[in-house]
């Protein structure tokens, strides 16, 4: 695993808002087939780190290396084209559109501007099936009619539909009940098993320990720990998050 070129490698990434340094020389490595958890307290810089990868808020300095090539990410479109997609916490779905239109939003299949509904519908259904989603009755349902877990599933399926290399999940289980959380976590595992690099931002350490292969901890804009889940404990991670402890020899 470690011999393989990482899908994403961030080197000394910086970002400031006016005088406030939100990211200070952050290094971050994401590998294919793994779930990489990104944890940290509120204001630690998790969202800023992700927004840079999504192309919404470019970094001020530092290198972004995607599969060995240095790239520039300055718009969401550039990120999508490189196979990076973000599933947002506030679920960027349109309630008034059906599942098919949401899955294809911004990337509709069409000929001279006319929608190819049949093709989109088939592909949408196939994608949901491939994710073993059975709870959605019809892909023509309006998203407004779906439950929280189903909405999260649609949001994740959106990222999968395009054969993305990287799927970034921002608090995927924050608004969900127990059973739905379990469903979504299983889905996250399946994404990694399918060879995708999954980045999961979460506050819920239980969820993190349930699915993540590696855990990165941000503390006040600095990466203070990068550990394998199998080699650490929840208590350790909590101390990294609160800043009472820093991983030995970290930052080399």
């Amino acid at each position, binding site marked *: 695993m470690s011999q393989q070129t990482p899908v994403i490698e961030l080197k000394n990434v910086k970002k400031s808002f006016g005088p406030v340094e939100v990211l200070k020389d952050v290094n971050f490595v994401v590998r294919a087939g793994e779930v990489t958890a990104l944890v940290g307290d509120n204001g630690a810089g998790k969202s800023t780190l992700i927004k840079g990868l999504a192309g919404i808020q470019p970094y001020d300095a530092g290198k972004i290396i995607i599969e060995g090539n240095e790239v520039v990410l300055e718009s969401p479109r550039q990120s999508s084209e490189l196979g990076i997609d973000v599933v947002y916490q506030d679920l960027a779905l349109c309630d*008034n559109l059906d599942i098919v239109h949401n899955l294809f*939003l*911004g990337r509709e299949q069409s000929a001279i501007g006319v929608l190819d509904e049949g093709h989109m519908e088939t592909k949408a259904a196939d994608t949901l099936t491939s994710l073993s989603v059975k709870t959605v009755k019809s892909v023509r349902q309006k998203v407004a009619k779906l439950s929280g877990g189903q909405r999260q599933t649609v949001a994740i399926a959106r990222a999968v539909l395009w054969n993305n290399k990287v799927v970034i999940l921002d608090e995927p289980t924050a608004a969900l009940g127990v059973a739905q959380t379990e469903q979504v976590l299983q889905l996250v595992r399946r994404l990694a098993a399918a060879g995708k690099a999954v980045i999961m931002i979460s506050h819920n350490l239980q969820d993190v320990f349930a699915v993540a292969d590696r855990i990165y901890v941000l503390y006040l804009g600095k990466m203070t720990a990068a550990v394998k889940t199998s080699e650490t404990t929840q208590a350790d991670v909590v101390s990294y998050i609160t800043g009472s402890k820093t991983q030995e020899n970290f930052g080399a």
Partner: protein
Amino acid sequence: MKIKKVSIPQEAGIFLVFFVMVLIFSVLSENFFTITNASVLLLNGAIIALIALGQTFVLLTGGIDLSTGANVAMCGIIATVLMRSGLPWWVAAIGAALCGSFLGVLNGLIIHYVGIPPFIVTFAAMGVASSIPMIITRAESIQITQEKFAWIGQGHVLGFPVPVILVIIAAIISSILLKNTVLGTHIYALGGNKLAARLSGINVMRTTVFVYAFSGFLAGVAGVIATSRLNVGYPQTGTGNQLFYSIAAAVVGGVSLFGGIGTIRGAIAGVLLISTISNGMNVVNVSSYWQPLVIGLIILGGVSIDSKRSSKRDGAKSKPRGKPQILSRTKK
């Protein structure tokens, strides 16, 4: 594969009310259910229908276009002036409609780039566009120099009045645009969740400019038709109740002022209903002073149902869609 559910019940309701109104007016006056009156109704309805179609596009994105009535007046005078300058009547007509869409483009660009609410931008545009024809004509009517221009408002093709045919064409094009094209999906998406639309890589600027340009274009066509029917360039054509009636028609037809919901079929049903009520009141000799009052109450009823519906929609979900920004805008 399941067939997409169509929101039949709601639109069926409007058509039902429409037929009831037709029935009531027919009983009240024997002059109502006649071919002559039907053609008067349709011709008057044509202007409102065109503006309402454009307005539907704007409302679907969550905006509103208050400049359409004034745009009708402006484009009517522009057509007259272009003809006086020696251009053939049909060139003048197309030129006027393009001027209408130009005003829409300006609306859209300002709304997108300056970030002012659509209500304010189009409110200001209303002032500008209603002033221009007054300045050009010094508030006097101007003669139309080409007789053939009258064909647009008064001519017939295969027995159908030209304005009605233009409305049918506009309605078909609108319906296809909204239902079957990428652009249509993006228009709905913008009204449904603007942030999601932007994050999905939708070109928000292009979509916004398009809906206002489309609304302006149809207002321009309406101005040409209205002027052609009067056969004189009158600088206040369309600045009366047209804007008011067209928004009423769209809202009654189920187009949500909150954005993202509504169909062309619904808007057309709304136009039929509003035109019928307006025409029916004329036929049974209700004083014209009463008409805006009645239409006003109808708007209120339509919006009440709409906001009930959308609060029910929100109640079921965790995410509130925020305060309806537009409600305060409708009291024009």
